[in-house]
């Protein structure tokens, strides 16, 4: 009998002893945790993408509870999460201006010339190290799809040699912006549809020689814009999205169609995202 009883008593007794000691210790070392932190953490998407600039969702939850972050800090959660967080904190929700990533290049295989054929590892960062990539334009999308690989939200497709972002899937997590070696992916407001899709700082004549949809620096958009939303620098037109009213005058006037209306979706685009 004691052969069974002894181990049970010894093990049970020790377990009980340590349990009691630990419960005393937990009272002595009790740390007050704001219950709001837990609640906010549950309201956040939990993707731990880091787009808010805090170390993961837990980091943002802590900052939100301390009032150190705006309620719309979570870029992928959108207005819904902002409202929910504001509700928990008992403050008014900040309006959430949704942004989406846009690839500022339209020079696909038909429109832009190549200077050589790249047959290496399928990674834009590697291709760029070889004389700046296979495209003759040293500013354009090299089309190896590093942004596609890094996108966790299924928002990027490679269509005819360039990356295209689907605004509906994009959560503005900034990952593609960071990985692009050409720095041609930009976050623009979701509501702004006129975008200068070119980053070439080359003079117009040179741009014309290698790409049919590049910005040639004619400044027609600058002259025609009713709200002075355009700025012109280094042979390249840029739109100030705060001033843009989506009148689409620039899109119509642009002689090379370098300014694109992002709300118009091509058949190829729709097909690729449907599949």
């Amino acid at each position, binding site marked *: 009998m004691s052969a069974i009883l002894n181990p049970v008593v010894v093990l049970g007794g020790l377990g009980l002893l340590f349990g009691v000691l630990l419960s005393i210790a937990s009272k002595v*070392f009790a740390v007050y945790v704001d219950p709001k932190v837990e609640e906010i953490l549950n309201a956040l998407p939990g993707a731990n993408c880091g787009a808010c600039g805090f170390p993961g969702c837990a980091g943002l939850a802590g900052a939100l509870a301390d009032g150190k972050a705006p309620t719309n800090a979570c870029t992928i959660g959108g207005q819904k999460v902002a409202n929910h967080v504001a509700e928990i904190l008992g403050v008014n929700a900040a309006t959430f201006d949704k942004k989406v990533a846009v690839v500022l290049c339209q020079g696909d295989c038909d429109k832009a010339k190549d200077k050589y054929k790249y047959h290496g590892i399928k990674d834009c960062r590697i291709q760029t190290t070889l004389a700046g990539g296979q495209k003759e334009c040293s500013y354009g999308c090299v089309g190896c799809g590093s942004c596609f690989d890094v996108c966790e939200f299924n928002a990027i497709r490679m269509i005819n040699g360039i990356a295209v972002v689907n605004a509906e899937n994009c959560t503005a997590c900034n990952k593609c912006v960071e990985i692009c070696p050409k720095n041609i992916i930009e976050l623009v407001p979701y509501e702004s549809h006129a975008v200068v899709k070119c980053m070439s700082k080359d003079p117009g004549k040179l741009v014309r020689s290698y790409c049919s949809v590049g910005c040639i620096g004619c400044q027609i958009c600058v002259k025609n814009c009713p709200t002075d939303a355009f700025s012109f620098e280094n042979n390249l037109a840029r739109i100030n999205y705060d001033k843009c009213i989506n009148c689409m005058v620039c899109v119509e006037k642009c002689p090379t169609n370098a300014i694109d209306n992002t709300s118009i979706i091509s058949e190829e685009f729709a097909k690729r995202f449907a599949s």
Partner: protein
Amino acid sequence: MSLFAIMISSILVNNYVFARFLGICPFLGVSNKMETATGMGIAVTFVTTLASVITYIIQHAILNNLGLQYLQTIVFILVIASLVQFVELALKKISPGLYSAMGVYLPLITTNCMVLGVAILNIQEGFNLIQTTTNAVGASLGFFLALVLIAALREKMDIADIPESLAGFPITLIAAGLMSIAFAGFAGLV
């Protein structure tokens, strides 16, 4: 064996990481920054020393008397787990920064085989209480030393130009292997 010999043996000659290959998980897991490495070293030192003393007392006062030596492993694990829980509670209160920096590796001290290894080897070697304490302190200092050495190397390697395929854990493992060979040079010292 004199206490000094035990100490030198457990720190250098039979270093628990480099010679016995125990406690490799935290050795690789929390050695990327000097600060967390030091914190982990202190936490492990505390747990190992205390666990060795308590397990020694339990072994000789309870298990040997009742002929329950076969319960050794489970009882020792119970002691270690409780101590780790205690350290976790204390650390959360005393140093929240260190607590979050150590993350999952803190509760994983429970399964750090070095802690259990030291406790069991103490019994197997037939040490008395003072020798046990010495060996435990030595073992944890040896672990501390290994952790700090590799952390210092890794901080340097972070900024060094390392081939991409080797960057990160591969080069760390190579460095750890070389350090282990270097520590083999202490063999025969005691």
